[in-house]
């Protein structure tokens, strides 16, 4: 037990790797081996983080331009308009986004945000960076597979980006790629999309295998299942979702690829006529088949977007309330049930396809059942705040922001879960508002929380608190100004995916139309767009803070600046290759904060019951 006392954070504020110990293996290699083709989970995690943040920015950039087109249909986009025209040519003639281009940008905003930004950040980056550390492992179980996972992601991303500049531009059929539209658009964007997706699916598969195997095999001695931090549980379940839900989309993608290039008609019904009968189509296919396979992935996918976020928030809430999370076991069981149920709710996205009321009834039932474990998790996290002496630092603010935002996202989902109310709301901005509450002020806030929280572990420096708080409050305000009006626009009947922001259906244009969109509803478009651009500006403090702190921020006072209990804080800062100086052993649960009778208000998991005598 001598070893443990040696790395006790209180005994020595900064554990130091012994001399060249950190330069073992490929750590000693060249720049390429060290930063590009590294097999170290931390380097790969950072690669995921940087690439993912770039894509997040890019996906947002697309939206800033789309919002201009919605707010001011037919007017040239300032600054970016001429740029678009220069790069993309006629589809942005005079700096005005054509409807085709709007469709491309919309489809790619969705695709990029989901598959290239949030999943790689929430799962690729955070699971890679934190899971091995939290379970006391030297690395992931399969380091080279891990590297391949990032590379597949990178190639997938490049293919998606390349599709913007090919003739005809990127995919136009939405992130959902429904046929017949996806198949009959004559350009190659969709083919790029499919091939890009195959790479991304491969990447997820490799990552998922790795995370699951790592958690099962590499837990430190004593770290049995119910001592795992909730974050690890969340990533574990997420990995299963990725592992099992993605392959059916891959089979669907293969079939769509066949439809595009081999002129099969898996998804095209017989007798389909699009601008004249198509001689190449043999017919006999079923467009609903695609929707089933797509949503079989895409519903679990939304849990892939949210579960890691919940994991992050849970860690930060426990740490900053200085008490154990409320209902750890309920959290874990709810998570497992959620993971399981997420596989049998998919057709709630298809109530309006005419798949039949019996099937709808089944999926309504499962959908409403799945809300129970979600509510349990949220409730546990809320109750954890009760009676805590809360430290309102930046990570905690973002975590606290997450709770009500995710709450709104979840509650606005209930009317979509019932076929009756979904008839009215389906395909409107209400849906956009609903799921963005989950993924934008929800997941993204949790990601920010995680970045502010774990930043000192990997850089040895703290981020600036003041600018962190500015970042939080501005983001919170603008996020709500963006997504709340969308709920009302949707209820008023404004459809999504409209290049003119609904102007065509406005009461202003067709005064005596029934249900025309009122001026009031239409004016929200402009307000939302301004809020989107302001939200963009609100990220400037974050970006500056991030880079400034990386080089110039105040040094973290110790290896464990937040005085946390979990294992990632019991390593040197930054953790060397191989992470721990000596193999850690675990003696207690993850959240032993404020245990009565202990000297400090936190007891690290690797602290033996009777502290080693020195």
């Amino acid at each position, binding site marked *: 037990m001598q070893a443990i006392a040696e790395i006790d954070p209180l005994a020595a504020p900064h554990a130091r*790797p*012994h*001399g*060249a*110990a*950190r330069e*073992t*293996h490929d750590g000693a290699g060249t720049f390429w081996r060290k930063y590009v083709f590294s097999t170290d989970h931390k380097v790969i995690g950072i690669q995921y983080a940087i690439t993912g943040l770039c894509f997040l920015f890019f996906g947002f950039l697309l939206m800033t331009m789309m919002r201009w087109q919605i707010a001011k249909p037919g007017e040239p986009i300032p600054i970016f308009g001429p740029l678009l025209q220069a790069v993309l040519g006629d589809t942005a003639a005079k700096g005005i986004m054509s409807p085709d281009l709007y469709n491309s940008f919309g489809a790619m905003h969705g695709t990029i945000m989901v598959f290239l930004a949030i999943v790689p950040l929430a799962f690729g980056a955070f699971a890679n960076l934190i899971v091995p550390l939290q379970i006391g*492992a*030297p*690395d992931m*179980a*399969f*380091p080279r*597979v891990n590297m391949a996972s990032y590379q597949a992601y990178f190639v997938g991303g490049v293919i998606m980006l390349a599709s913007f500049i090919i003739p005809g531009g990127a995919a136009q059929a939405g992130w959902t790629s429904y046929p017949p539209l996806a198949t009959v658009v004559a350009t190659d964007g969709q083919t790029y999309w499919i091939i890009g997706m195959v790479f991304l699916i491969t990447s997820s*598969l490799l990552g*998922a*295998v*790795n995370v*699951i*195997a790592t958690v*099962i*095999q*590499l837990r430190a001695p004593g770290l049995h299942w119910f001592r795992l931090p909730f974050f690890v549980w969340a990533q574990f379940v997420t990995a299963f979702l990725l*592992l*099992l*839900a*993605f*392959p*059916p*989309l*891959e*089979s*669907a993608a*293969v*079939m769509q690829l*066949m439809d595009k290039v*081999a*002129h*099969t*008609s*898996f998804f095209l019904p*017989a007798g389909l006529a699009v601008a004249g009968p198509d*001689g*190449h189509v*043999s*017919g*006999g*296919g*079923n467009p609903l*088949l695609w929707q*089933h*396979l797509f949503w*079989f992935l895409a519903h679990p996918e939304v849990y892939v977007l949210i579960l890691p976020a919940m994991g992050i928030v849970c860690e930060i809430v426990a740490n900053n309330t200085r008490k154990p999370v409320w209902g750890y076991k309920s959290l874990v069981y709810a998570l497992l049930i959620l993971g399981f149920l997420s596989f049998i709710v998919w057709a709630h996205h298809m109530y309006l396809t005419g798949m039949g009321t019996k099937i709808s009834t089944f999926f309504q039932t499962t959908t409403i059942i799945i809300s129970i474990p979600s509510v349990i998790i949220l409730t546990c996290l809320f109750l954890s705040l009760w009676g805590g002496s809360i430290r309102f630092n930046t990570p905690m603010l973002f975590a606290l922001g997450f709770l009500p935002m995710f709450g709104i996202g979840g509650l606005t989902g209930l009317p979509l879960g019932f076929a009756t109310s979904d008839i009215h709301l389906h395909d409107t901005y209400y849906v956009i508002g609903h799921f963005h509450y989950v993924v934008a002020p929800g997941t993204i806030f949790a990601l920010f929380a995680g970045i502010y929280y774990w930043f000192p572990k990997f850089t040895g420096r703290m981020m600036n608190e003041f600018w962190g708080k500015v970042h939080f409050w501005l983001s919170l305000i603008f996020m709500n100004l963006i997504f709340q009006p969308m709920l009302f626009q949707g209820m008023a009947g404004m459809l999504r995916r409209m290049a003119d922001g609904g102007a065509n259906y406005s009461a202003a244009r067709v005064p005596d139309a029934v249900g025309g969109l009122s001026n009031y509803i239409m004016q929200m478009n402009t307000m939302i767009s301004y809020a989107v651009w302001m939200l963009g500006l609100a990220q400037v403090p974050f970006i500056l803070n991030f880079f400034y702190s990386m080089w110039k921020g105040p040094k973290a006072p110790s290896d464990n600046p937040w005085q946390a209990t979990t294992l990632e804080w019991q390593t040197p800062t930054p953790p*060397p290759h*191989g*992470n*721990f100086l*000596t*193999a850690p052993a675990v003696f207690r649960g993850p959240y032993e904060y404020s245990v009565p009778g202990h000297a400090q208000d936190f007891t690290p998991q690797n602290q033996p019951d009777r502290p080693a005598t020195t």
Partner: protein
Amino acid sequence: MHAAMEIPYVSTPRPDTGLYNAKIGIWLFLASEVMLFGGLFSAYILLRVGAPDGTWPEGWLNIPVGTTNTVVLITSSITTVMAWASCKMKQFGRFKLFHGLTLLLAMTFVGIKSYEYHDKFTHYEAKLNDQLVLADGKTVFGNLVANTNGVVLFSVSTGQPGEYEATPAKYAQAQVAKIVPGQIVDGHLVERAADHITLSGHTVAEHAELMNMRSAAARHIQHSEITLVPAQLRSIETYGPWHNTYLAIYFTLTGLHALHVLGGALVIGYLWGPGSKLWQTDPERFTNRVEISGLFWHFVDLVWIFLFPVLYLL
């Protein structure tokens, strides 16, 4: 000075799970593979159940050939197990023998499969134009547009398959000796040139007659060589994936499976060849690798065990 922590359980099992890392890895990978093929199998079911009566082909594949391939794959699974057992018994020579056999069988499978593919890609369904035999003995190919009031409207082939003169030709009834409606010639390619194509097959009146090749009638089909000129053709298409939904799913499923066979063969080939050097330095780890690749191979085999009845027999 000590080195950093090493990844544990790379080749020895972890006591509480009883597994070494790669074994968990391959099981997880196979779970995802089950979902991948599961997606395609469910597509098969949905498409087949949804197909209108008489549009889903039966008996289009050669059962003896498929059976042979099934036997080949099952045998290769056995040799795979033997190869692994040989490693366990420290008999490297026997390992080489058995995995050599596995490789050979894998290649046999791919060979037979390519033969079957080739058979489909040289199998044509040619839809023929209507035929107008004129009183003066001349024959015109094209589409009969109308035959009323003593006037025959006929859109005449340009001489290219599926292409017709812009305006239909008009014939008086008296000029026309006979109207032969377009039939279908179905058969294998004998010869193809710019000005003709020769198929060895038979002629039917309706596409639907080609659907059930297991029927009694189908078994008595007489094949003969039929030569067609481009002007005779309304359309001509091979039995590729584009031909109909059954062939689409057939090619997709077996193609994906064949890729798995090739991938597996590549890994086994590596372990048999350059990768077998590991036997000298770390026999335990090498044996594990053989086991892992074997598990994958059994999976590939298993998929075929499902594919064979579904595509050939049902």
